[in-house]
């Protein structure tokens, strides 16, 4: 079991606006994200999941509290690129994450700019090919293609290919499956597990579907109105949820094996 903490937060808060319009997006969070684990953050829309993801990515600065990465305060370096070398993200909409005017291959190659020591041209080509194969895409398939020529599922895999190239220590995946077909969802989750297994990555998986969270994670945080109201292992959270929000989230999944919605008897299917 991993014992060292990758992220550690103490009283972490982020609020927007002031006075009457003050919105506390994230309130007084204290948590640790262990090394080499998949931690899921689950909650309804507006519960502060994405703000938390942005705080971990250093795209937002906390209004109060402290956040440590590998034991050091997160903003200790002036240059945020130092942080981004070790923490990378996959977002909801893959089409907005790629530039429409360049080929996908060129953009995958440009991710090497983040490295301090750029490998040779041949090695770059080889590593791009290897990353594409890791997400089950033949390099020939996307040769000379632009983002709009691929489907949502394929683009989401391109984002994951970028992660296979960059090999960060931590991956923040913010709703990576919401734009993807229900039938390709399983494959995206399998790639996330592969990243953890093969590259020893720590993954923070943000989702509103607690079912997906159970499937891949080692530990689940349930968020509601900016606070973590429940955390624990997937088995514990799904079998004996302590808070009503978790119960609600579990009930609201339209699962085939149980009653989901009530309708007047005469018309029900």
């Amino acid at each position, binding site marked *: 079991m991993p014992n060292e903490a990758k992220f550690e937060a103490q009283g972490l808060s982020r609020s927007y606006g002031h006075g009457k319009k003050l919105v506390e997006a994230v309130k007084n969070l204290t948590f640790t994200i262990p090394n080499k684990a998949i931690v899921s953050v689950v909650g309804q829309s507006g519960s502060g999941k994405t703000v938390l993801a942005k705080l971990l990515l250093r795209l937002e600065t906390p209004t109060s509290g402290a956040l440590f990465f590998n034991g050091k305060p997160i903003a200790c370096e002036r240059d945020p690129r130092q942080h981004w070398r070790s923490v990378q993200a996959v977002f909801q909409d893959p089409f907005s994450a790629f530039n429409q005017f360049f080929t996908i291959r060129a953009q995958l190659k440009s991710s090497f700019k983040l490295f301090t020591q750029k490998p040779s041209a041949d090695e770059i080509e080889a590593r791009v090919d290897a990353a594409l194969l890791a997400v089950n895409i033949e390099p020939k398939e996307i040769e000379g293609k632009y983002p709009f020529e691929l489907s949502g599922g394929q683009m989401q895999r391109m984002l994951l290919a970028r992660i296979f190239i960059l090999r960060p220590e931590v991956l923040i995946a913010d709703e990576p499956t919401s734009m993807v077909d229900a039938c390709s969802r399983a494959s995206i989750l399998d790639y996330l597990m592969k990243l953890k297994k093969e590259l020893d990555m720590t993954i923070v998986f943000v989702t509103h579907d607690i*079912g997906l969270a159970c499937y891949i994670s080692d530990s689940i945080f349930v968020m509601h109105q900016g606070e973590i109201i429940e955390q624990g292992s997937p088995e514990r959270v799904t079998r004996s949820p302590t808070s009503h929000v978790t119960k609600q989230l579990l009930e609201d999944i339209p699962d*085939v094996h149980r009653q989901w919605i009530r309708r007047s008897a005469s018309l029900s299917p």
Partner: protein
Amino acid sequence: MTRPIFEVDQLRAHYLTRFGQKIQAVDGVSFSLRPGEILGIAGESGCGKTTLVSACMGLYIPPLHLSGGDVRIDGQSIIGMDVETNRRDILGKKISMIPQGALNSLNPTRKVRDLASDMMLSHGERLDKKEIEARLRGRFRKLGMPAEEVLNAYPTQLPAGMKQRVVIAISTLLDPRVVIADEPTSALDVSTQKAVIQLLFELMDQGIIGSMLFITHELPLLRHVSNNIAVMYAGEFVELGTTEQVIFNPRQPYTKALMGSMLSAEPGHQGQRPVAIEGAPPNLTHAIEGCRFAERCPEVRPECKANRQVIRLVEERQVRCQYAE
């Protein structure tokens, strides 16, 4: 047996690209809807679900063209009608659509009241301001929304779930016979999704809408929503049966694979590993000789790639596979 409200008969539609290619996106789809029936259509993205919506509504806007077939509402064909007449007399009144991206389908610079009254005026209803106001309030209240608050708001001031409900309320203002819901919940979280489905049921139970076509890529959701399910692949229906038949006892290999790729969070079913369907749907720019699913089918046989599959009846359901039992 009651007469169907909505009949689609061997409907075929294609796109013409600017390079002169013809893409047969919908190829020979037939189904009918009886009053009070909800038919769910499931399939991957790119299988022709959204094209089927436009084709069913008679919205043939280039590059989409009709290649054949017929669509009838209450026995009246809407194919071959000119665009203006269709827009004024059929759309909204007889058949209405709930669009996919509800968050982008409301004009952000106009109040909900103006958007809703536009819907009534542009379909030939002659009403004065007071009548419109009364009808809007009545309808919004009937659907359990705070009428005054919502009508006065700009779309950006409403949360996502409320926006989707406003879109549903507006598209059903004129009491259409048939409603086509094109992925009405795909952008919402699970709890809001439930509220939206409840609203759709409300509309059916109060008799505001006659029957519904519910399009989604999530088969588990259809289990709770629809009476019958059609599974679509590469422009064709591959299986059409009751919800029980399709969800719990699928026969066509594609339906089986689709069910196998779904996750379940229920205790007792968590152990089942979902299996994604490898590969991509076929390119429809040229005619395909044999079975369209043959490339990805786990139960493929050598002759599948040559034999064109036709719909046949297997235990009271339609299946497009000659080996399904």
